[in-house]
């Protein structure tokens, strides 16, 4: 029997596979395909204080081994989340993470304060959404701004605070260090790479928002490198993601230094992805006579 539990700060996850924000709704639709009590956690769709319609469609473009999305944080607003979605999610028997993406420091602080009064298990501060004009990725591209906003949010809640980083930077480990020094309990990476798709015939961007965020297997090599890089730099846990489709992929991220992983785009093409991945990880660990998933973390032997 493999011990599947992993520890993110004070929080124990029953296994290291978390459904990534924006690719699992609030879990409702996924009950049909998964026994949600068996996955490591669910990160909610990115939340803002007020409801958001998000960007106009077309919001998706298929690319080689991946996709671009430009949803733009469509969500019902924090209050509706707390009233209508969170109670449902907390009843699922898995760890529930609220992904918040305020357009300003103040909005993030206010959301953190409100979430502090709920039973949510952790807050994932999203400083990396590429699909909105204000806040988010703009924060996430500057170590100084990251420090500022993480410190402020840290002071407004005692919940475990995870900070989600953008890969669209020169040195992601500096961003991770900034989050750590400001009190983050974990860093999550990567969010999507800023990209574009063009329809040659119409000479138009496929996405109505012109640009979008690239995810899926195409980005996996970049994500793995960044997770490895960040894990070497910080001492808080790293939650790795980007193109994970299989249990093998997930273990590669753990070997690179991740304590847990998130599975995003895979859910879209294979709704049972999270469960399948956990099962495959258990099979591999069993075959490798590993007694605890946590033994994989950071075991990469570099040349």
């Amino acid at each position: 029997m493999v011990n599947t539990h992993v520890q993110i700060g004070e929080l124990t996850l029953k296994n290291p596979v978390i459904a990534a924000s924006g690719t699992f709704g609030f879990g409702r639709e996924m009950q049909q395909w998964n026994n949600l009590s068996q996955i490591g956690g669910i990160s909610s769709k990115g939340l803002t204080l007020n409801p958001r319609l998000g960007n106009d469609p077309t919001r998706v473009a298929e690319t080689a081994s991946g996709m671009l999305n430009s949803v733009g944080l469509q969500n019902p607003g924090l209050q509706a989340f707390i009233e209508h979605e969170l109670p449902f999610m907390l009843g699922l028997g898995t760890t529930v993470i609220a992904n918040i993406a305020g357009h300003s420091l103040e909005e993030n602080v206010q959301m953190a304060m409100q979430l502090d009064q709920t039973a949510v298990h952790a807050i994932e501060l999203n400083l990396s959404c590429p699909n909105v004009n204000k806040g988010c990725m703009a924060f996430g591209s500057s170590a100084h701004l990251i420090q500022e906003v993480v410190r402020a949010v840290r002071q407004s809640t005692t919940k475990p605070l995870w900070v989600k980083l953008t890969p669209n930077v020169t040195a992601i480990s500096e961003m991770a260090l900034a989050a750590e020094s400001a009190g983050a309990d974990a860093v999550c990476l990567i969010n999507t790479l800023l990209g574009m798709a063009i329809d040659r015939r119409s000479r138009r961007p496929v996405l109505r928002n012109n640009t979008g965020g690239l995810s899926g297997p195409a980005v996996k090599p970049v994500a793995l490198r960044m997770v490895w890089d960040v894990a070497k730099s910080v001492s808080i846990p790293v939650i790795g993601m980007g193109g994970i489709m299989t249990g093998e992929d997930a273990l590669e991220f753990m070997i690179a230094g991740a304590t847990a992983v998130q599975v995003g785009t895979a859910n879209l093409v294979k709704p049972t992805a999270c469960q399948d991945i956990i099962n495959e990880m258990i099979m591999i660990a069993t075959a490798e006579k590993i007694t605890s998933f946590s033994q994989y973390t950071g075991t990469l032997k570099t040349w």
Partner: protein
Amino acid sequence: MTQIEFNCPVVNQHRLNDQFVILTLKSAAICDTAQPGQFVNLSCQEFLRRPFGIMAIDRATNEFQVGIQIKGKGTKQLAGLKIGDIVSILGPLGHGFDMTGARRIITVGGGTGVFPLYFVHQTAKELGIERIAICGYRSVEDAILRDEFKAIANRTVFASDTGGLDVIGHAGHALQIALEQLASNTIGSQPTLDQSTFILTCGPKIMMQKVAEMALANGLSCQVSLEEHMGCGIGICLVCVCKIKNHETAEINHQRCCVEGPVFAAEDVVW
């Protein structure tokens, strides 16, 4: 927890012409619950799945059909499937047409929109609802499924942009003529053109918008099947949204084409 990913064998592949193919697939689970207007999401070799309206089901054999127009890589791959190949399918998905209270349906289809409307006729026939099928095509060469609609509908009108069929012009134009005839009671078995006549439409957006306006102008209930680029097809990624108006609050919302749709009440759609 109901498992709704199926590995379905291809039991037939029928090429209508160089553009259109009808795949017949086997799945008891899909045939058991599918409603007209719902769709299935098929895997191909590309990264994302491809959505297709269900065209017909046969509960006796547990076979169902989808009609595919070859557009890009994915549809080309799917059209090239051979008997015995296995396809991963999610479905039936989405919210289909509602025929509760209908005594007569008029379907208005354009292009690939005629495929899912065939399933509407199958079901309406079972329910004993009078059926008028209006199908619009670009040309006689594109005019697919005519025999099938003739066999299943009480009355058919085929329109072609370039002539050669019943009506020259688009399907909306054909609908106009049909509505006039119905109003003057020259066609159809039901006496009047009232609320129990449902207009159900699927096809190019501009056609559906015309049809919806015409229907609403005539005081008829109208449902439209919208198309949006999809990520998951199951409601989790929010990429497929359509602008839908809430008539009580006058608010415009983004609703998911794959869950709340693809069929919406025409009066709620913000075109």
